[in-house]
Structures are given as structure tokens and as C-alpha cells.
């Protein structure tokens, strides 16, 4: 098929840039481990019915759990229209690495912390995992960013990093 000389150059340049971009992206994912939120290997957790999530580990004990030196597991359950833990204020030491484990008991929710890369979906029947290190102290807003019903805008909580 006939192609104009300048168009050939334009497409060659474009495709080369695309290749560079995808390689950079791939290195980020596979070499540096900059993964989007995901699930731990299947079989690691059994999958209970979503409405029974709160009776099953780890979601029977929502909240912050110390698992190592400056390393924590933060278990959260999204329920229309709130997050558990409900009352316990979540206080995280500054500089600590936090492993989020999130699920939903009913519909699909979001869990986002503005100003950070923490942004994930809470899907009923599934566990979402994401790791983040809170470096800056302060009070962080946690909000639901997936429409979940008529109380959606009231679904939020806070995390304190001190």
C-alpha cells in the first residue's frame, strides 16, 4: 500500500515513542513492583459470601494491625454507606508502610485518599490489596469514589498519621 514519505517518518517516530513508553511502564510494573491494586494469590483467602465477610478473617477484625517493624496491615470493610473500623480512630506512625486489605459486604465501593496514590475498588466477594507508605504527618481524608447508592457522598472517614 502506498504511503507518503513524511507519513512513514511520522508513524515510525510515533511507534518508536510508543515502544519506549510501554517499556518504561513495563519496567515500573515488573522490575520496580509499581503494581496497581490487586488480589493476593487465589486460595490464600477463601471467598465467603460478601454479607459474611465480617465473620471471616481478616475482616472480622477491621483496623490497624502491626505486623512488623514499622509495617502495618490496615483491614477495612466498605458497607453502604460507611467504612469499618467505625469508631476506632486509625492512627498510623509517620513513615510506616501500610498494607491495605479491603472488601465490601454489599455493592461496589471505592476507597481513595486524596493527595496520595491510594485509590482502589472494594468489590463484594473479593479482597483488594495495596501497599502505601505514609511519609507526611497529618489527617487524611478517606472517601468512597464509586457510586454506591443515595448515601454515597456521606461515605468517608479519616486516617491520622502522626
Amino acid at each position: 500500500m502506498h504511503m507518503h514519505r513524511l507519513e512513514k517518518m511520522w508513524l515510525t517516530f510515533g511507534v518508536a515513542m510508543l515502544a519506549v513508553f510501554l517499556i518504561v511502564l513495563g519496567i515500573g510494573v515488573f522490575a520496580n513492583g509499581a503494581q496497581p491494586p490487586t488480589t493476593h494469590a487465589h486460595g490464600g483467602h477463601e471467598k465467603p459470601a460478601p454479607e459474611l465477610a465480617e465473620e471471616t478473617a481478616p475482616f472480622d477484625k477491621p483496623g490497624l494491625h502491626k505486623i512488623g517493624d514499622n509495617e502495618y496491615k490496615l483491614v477495612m470493610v466498605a458497607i453502604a454507606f460507611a467504612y469499618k473500623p467505625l469508631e476506632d480512630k486509625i492512627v498510623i506512625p509517620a513513615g510506616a508502610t501500610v498494607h491495605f486489605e479491603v472488601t465490601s459486604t454489599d455493592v461496589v465501593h471505592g476507597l481513595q485518599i486524596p493527595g496520595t496514590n491510594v485509590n482502589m475498588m472494594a468489590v463484594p466477594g473479593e479482597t483488594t490489596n495495596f501497599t502505601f507508605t505514609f511519609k507526611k504527618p497529618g489527617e487524611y481524608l478517606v472517601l468512597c469514589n464509586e457510586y454506591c447508592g443515595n448515601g454515597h457522598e456521606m461515605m468517608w472517614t479519616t486516617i491520622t498519621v502522626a
Partner: protein
Amino acid sequence: MTDTVLAKQSEADGHRFAPQDGKLILAHVLFAFGALVIGAIAGLLQGLVRGGIVTLPAGIGYYQLLTAHGVLMALIFTTYFIFGFIWASIARTLGDLMPQVRRMAWVGFALMTIGTLLGTVLILLNQATVLYTFYAPMKASPLFYIALVHVVAGTWASAAGLFVQYRYWRRKHPGQTSPLLAFMSVATMILWIVATLGVAATILAQLLPLSLGWTERVNVMVSRTLFWYFGHPLVYFWLLPAYMCWYVVIPKVIGGRIFSDSLARLSFVLFVLFSIPVGFHHQLMEPGISPLWKFVQVVLTFMVVIPSLMTAFSLFATFELTGRERGRRGLFGWLKAMPYKDVRFFAPFMGMLIFIPAGAGGIVNASNQMNGVVHNTLWVTGHFHLTVASGVALTFFGIAYWLIPAATGRKLTPKLHRLGIVQTWVWAVGMLFMSGAMHSVGLLGSPRRTAYTTYGDNAEAVGWMPYHVVMAVGGTILFVSVVLLVINIVLLLRAPRGVEEFPLGETAPDSPAVPVWLERWGLWVGIVIVLVLFAYTVPFADMIQHAGPGAKGVVTW
């Protein structure tokens, strides 16, 4: 019959649609704009609520409005307009519609209309406040899903009619290349049919049985995957008809030629191949899909960069060649030769310009880990309004300004021309404010699809409010543009009688022949199927094998 009609049409500028075809086209286009008006009222109210400017009178819910806005604008306005334009393209290039094709088109129109009316009533009754994504396990009224089935089935009936007409033409013209617009219409329909299989599957196999109470639970990940298998190519279903206008109509309007017929066809084929097996890039932030398969689909997503670059090159090459033929010199002197006062050019051209930053934003959204910064924030809403609501919508407005008079046998008068230019400017300005504010506040973290809230007067969220006010201002300006559009359409329907041309670009007489393999649809559909199987089989099997008991249907509104 067809050949004499074709001969008549070759006196291109005097083209008239057969009255019955004109009626069919007009019905689709006017229905589209009717949906646009109702959707725009919902959109205006939403903007004002979110900006804290008004509170809705008791009984109307914000999310109800949001559902109406999304369904009527993103699904109904676009689909009706696209079918109106595609029927016009077919009738213009393949000859008057055959009687049985016309019947299929009206059956399609009737099914879509039953579905739309039923769906709208259910939304207004608060029986289906599930937004236009209707994510499981939210459970709308069964009638809402039945309404959606009607809309999809209607599009299939119409598409079948289109294929019948196309096959008839090819049988009658052995060895000939089909007209470019007809080729592009077929590509668009193939994409649509392959894509809608996903949404049909989740509605028929999962959501409707759930809603009727025949099943108690639904596999949420499967349903999300099927939805986005449809939801991403949906974007290209909106875009390809706009590209039809950019590739074929615009060259004629500016008095130039199509840059390359073969490359235009190749780019459409590539869009069909690379827009379907890539839905995971909408699901990057969720569990249940292994990171490897997410990455595979991210790579496939970015393959559309190739036809996009081809399209950009072709369009600007046409502009430059036309400008230089008119004696314009210098690196960008040809830009001055474009007919900015011609709304048939100006509206789609503004759409093209806005589409450049829109495409750049799309690259951010699909970029695997970078998506975490913007996922489900107002940035995405801003992106959406630059692509569909600007690039596509402005092009559709530009088409409507000649298609409505062409279908009714009237003239687009200079006065209506000017009104169209004003309407385009108002739209662009409104969008600049609204989408600019959405992109900015989205980067700060403000979520999409959320009613007015300051999250307990959280300092950060309070800081987002000025942006929300700008969004409301932009939305109001956009609404003014819709009002201008409606005025213009009413005036167009009463314009003086005459012949308005369907501008149909041609390639240079000495341009090389189009390779035959481009029209081997069996081959392209085969490759699509292979790509879909490659991108989906393993992760999809995983979702089914490792499914828990599933989620119960709920009504949370």
C-alpha cells in the same frame, strides 16, 4: 433500480435523499436531540447542585438526575445520531435504501424508542438509579434491563439492514471498491455488534435474572468485565462516525481532497481491532484480575495510538494541501485558508482541536499505575466531556447543520450559519470552564459521581468548592449552547426549501487503487475474535473458577 439512482447521484451536489430516507434520517436525528435536551436539563441541575448553588426540591434525587444525564446523553443521543448519520451515509453512497432495508431500519428505530421511553420513565420513577454503568450487584427494576435489551436489539436490527444493503451493492458491483463512507459505516457497525455482545451477555445472563428474582446472586467481577468489554469500544463507536466526518466530509467542505483512501480504511480496521480486547484498563484499580493480564490489555489499549496518529496525519495533510493549493505559504500559512465561517467546518474543527488534549488525558487514564492518581476522580469526568461531549458532540452538531436541511429539502441560510458558529463558540467556552475545572479538581482528588458534600467540612474538600462553582458556571454556559442549538434546529426545520448537499470528499484522481484485502471483513472479524480470546480467556476463566458464591442483588437508593 440502484444503478439509475447511483447515476443520478453522481451529479453529486444536487443530491437529494429519497423522501422516505429523508424521513428515516430526520427521525433519528431529531430523537437524538430530544434526548440531548432532557439530558442537558439534568446536567445543568447536577452542576448547580454540586457547586452548592441550589438544592433539589424534595423528591428528586441527585443520582436520579445523574442516571438520566448519563443514559440520555452518552447512550441515547449518541446512538440515535450515529444511526441517523450512518443511514444518510449509506443512502448517499450506496443508493436509496431498499424497501426491506428501510423496514429493518424502522423496526430498529421502534425497538430503540420503546426501550428509551421505558428506561427514561423508570429512571424518573427512581426505579433504576444505577447510573449508566448499572454495576452489579445493584438491582434496578427488571423493566429497566428489558428497556436496555430493546435499545440494543434495535441497534442490531438496524445494523442487519445496513449489512443487507452493503452486500447487495457489492454483489452488483463485483471487483469494485465500496464507497469509503459505506466501508466506514460497516466497520463502525461491526465494532458495535462485537462490543454489545458483552453488555447483552451481562444483562441477559446476570442482571435480568437477578432482578426478576430467578437468581439470588451475581458474579460481580464477571459482570464488570463484560460491561467494560463493551464500555471501552463504546467510546470508539462514538468516535468512528466523527472520524467519518473528519475523513470524508471535511475535505469536501474545505474544497480539498481525501488524503489517502486506503490509509483511511486501514485506520478504521485498526480501530476495530484494537478498541475491543482492552476493557481491563477501566478495571486497573480493582481485585480479581492478575496484574499481568491488566498489563497485557494496557499494551493492547495503546495500539490505538497507531491509527490515531494516521488519522491526525491525514487530516492535517488535507488541510495543508488545500491551503497550499490556494497559494498560502509558510509553515502554518495554510491554516489561514480554512473556512472558519462555515459551521460545517468550524464545529467539527473545534471538536478536533479539543480532541488533542482529550487524547492526551486518555493516555494518562490508561497508563497502568498512573491511573491510580485519577481513577474515579472528576478528572475522568473532565476527560469524558472533552472526548464525547466535545470532540464527538461538536462534530455531530456540525453534521446536523447540513444533514437536517439535506433530509428535509431545505437550505442552511447564512443567518443559521452564523447562529451555528455562535452556538459552537458558546459550547467550546462552556466546556473550557467545566472540563478545565473538572480536570484540575480531579487531580486534587475530588471524586466523580458524587452529590454535594464537604466531607464534614474537611479542609481539603472545602478547598475543592471553588472548582465546583466553576464547573457549575461552565455547565450553565453549555446549557445556553443547547438552547441555541434547539432554536437553530427549529429554524432549520422551517428554512426555505432548496437542496443542501451532503458533502462527500473524493480522493485525487491519480491516487493508487485500494487493496482488495481491506474489504475482507471475514478476515478482520476473525482477527478480532483471536485478539479477544487472547486477552480474555485466561483471566475470565480465573474469575469463574475462583468465584465465591457471588453477591446478592441490592437496592441502595
